[in-house]
């Protein structure tokens, strides 16, 4: 193996490890409603539907973004509505999925 190959692999591994160790996860955990069973069931259904829309349409091209401001979720969902030809109902479910 040539020195150039070894240097490239070493650089990639070192850089990856350094960033992986330094990074912290920042997933937004949705707060599950604790009011009553009906609310919880509705919440779970909504999440499932939103997740289905995301899996079947958005994630065909890209992975889920880690996190983003709730203030721009409407813009992101509108962008997806055009790209993936979503219905208004799917747009709303996706919005609810991002902002439970």
């Amino acid at each position: 193996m040539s020195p150039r190959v070894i240097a490239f692999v070493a650089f990639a591994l070192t850089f990856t490890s350094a960033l992986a160790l330094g990074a912290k996860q920042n997933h937004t955990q949705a707060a599950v409603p604790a009011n009553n069973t009906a609310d919880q069931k509705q919440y779970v259904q909504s999440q499932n539907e939103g997740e289905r829309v995301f899996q079947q349409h958005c994630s065909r091209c890209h992975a889920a973004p880690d996190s983003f401001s709730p203030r721009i979720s409407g813009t992101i969902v509108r962008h997806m509505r055009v790209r993936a030809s979503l219905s208004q109902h799917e747009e709303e479910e996706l919005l609810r999925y991002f902002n439970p």
Partner: protein
Amino acid sequence: MEPLLAAPLGHSILVESRAALLESFAPNSSNQPGYEHTHFIGLTYLQGDFVVSRHFTIVAGDYLIPFNTYNERLSPVWIGNFQDGPLIASLGTFSSGSGLGGMLRGNAIARNKCSIDYNYFYSARSGNEQFNARRGSGGRASLYLPEQRLEIGLSYDRLLQGTHENFYGGHLWWEPKNTAFRLRSEGARGHHAQGYWIEADYRTKAFGGLDSAIGRIEPVFRIQQTFRRDTIVSDSLPLVNTQRADFGLDYNLPHNVRILASYARQFSSTGNHNIWETGIVYRFLFPAWKGK
């Protein structure tokens, strides 16, 4: 850098645009010491979308040509698995990759077990520096089976200026349910050249899920071939028949950061050579205006 601006207006309109800002440094040619530096700023697209329903969206402006999948769906720098696009990316996209005019798009059939999407566009000729486009028209239709996670599509467009040329394309994507395996492929045939690419990538959930240190590793493989049909060169494909295999290893860090690294071996009658590429992609989103 590829800044993207999206502005929703009311309940049905979206104005969106993407630009490319490129600074490049390369060693001086002809054995001169030092580096040469170039920069480029250009508008990739600027379009307005009016959503009538899921079946019908009107797009006007300078839009990405919806031929096959790469140009419209995989070309954003934060989506692509490799630093560079496939060799056939320029086939069917009229050189500039964008059209100036109108497009109709939507979902023709939406069922639980299948859906069919369509696009139809017409582009006018434009010599403007930022809105360069060629006259042509075409479209794409794709069938998606949600249970199988299988997508099959066909594309066609025709250049309507200079020598009128037809371009044919087809794509097949398969992303099995409950896995992080993706298989994408497409082929295209132009007037002077044709080719195909097949790409597979995988992330394992076996060691603590996709967000674990191991689950964030994404091996990627792509194979591609191009064939010249004649020696008239009006596209960006290699001048001779070419085969290329790409081996990539991406790492998906938290906070929307990706590290891409790949090695490729390219074979052609003009010589075989290695291609090493690496890059870091950081995607961040922020509101440009006060929102609700």
